């Protein structure tokens, strides 16, 4: 139960941080970049906590593919790809975090555009991801209230 609660707290934090990251002026670019990098690691932990599902679902898809599982896996994989593109493009346009770490990359606005497009896709896919796990979120909120 402790692990499930920790998972819920992490997921809720990811949701609020992601909403914050979508609005750069809220934190300013420098904090946006550092929080963005931390978010990528937190998302990695989120995936590690769901590891059994990630591994078992493709096997189940091969055996008996339920529509829900196919749709859910498609959404989750797309969200994973969108987050990787967001992180990669974010690193490529970094003006504070990366130079602080000693790396300098030539500015290319194509990365800015990709970052912006990936953000839009990620917002939509996060909505679908929340929709697919709505019952679990609702159940966790009820447990916390009780």
């Amino acid at each position: 139960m402790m692990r499930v609660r920790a998972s819920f707290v992490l997921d809720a934090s990811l949701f609020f941080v992601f909403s914050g990251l979508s609005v750069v002026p809220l934190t300013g670019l420098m904090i946006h970049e550092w929080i963005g990098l931390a978010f990528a690691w937190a998302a990695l932990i989120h995936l590690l906590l769901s590891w059994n599902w990630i591994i078992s679902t493709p096997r189940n898809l091969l055996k008996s593919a339920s529509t829900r599982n196919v749709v859910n896996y498609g959404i989750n994989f797309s969200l994973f790809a969108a987050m990787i593109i967001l992180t990669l493009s974010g690193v490529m346009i970094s003006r504070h975090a990366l130079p602080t770490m000693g790396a300098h990359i030539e500015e290319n606005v194509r990365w800015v555009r990709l970052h912006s497009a990936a953000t839009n896709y990620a917002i939509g896919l996060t909505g679908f991801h929340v929709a697919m796990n709505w019952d679990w979120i609702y159940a966790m909120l009820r447990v916390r209230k009780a």
Partner: protein
Amino acid sequence: MRTLVRMSVLLVAAVAVAGVVYPLVATRPPIHCEDVFPRQRARDACRTRWDPPASFRAVPRFVFQGAIVIAIATGARKVLGVSLNRRTKED
């Protein structure tokens, strides 16, 4: 140890996705911020400085951003159907 292996698998998957995207963008000639945005907007579009009043003004947008995700989730539940939202034993 098991966690390290799992992290490595995820990082390999991440590198695979990045490996598809990176050559598509990085191999093309760079274009600069000022080339894209009109001169009068370039200062805003390309700025990096933190501005506390802008942060304050961005709070409603932050709330709106979260609301958009919840709205998409609510809409998706209706469109995808209740059956898709029910977890099965496989989940």
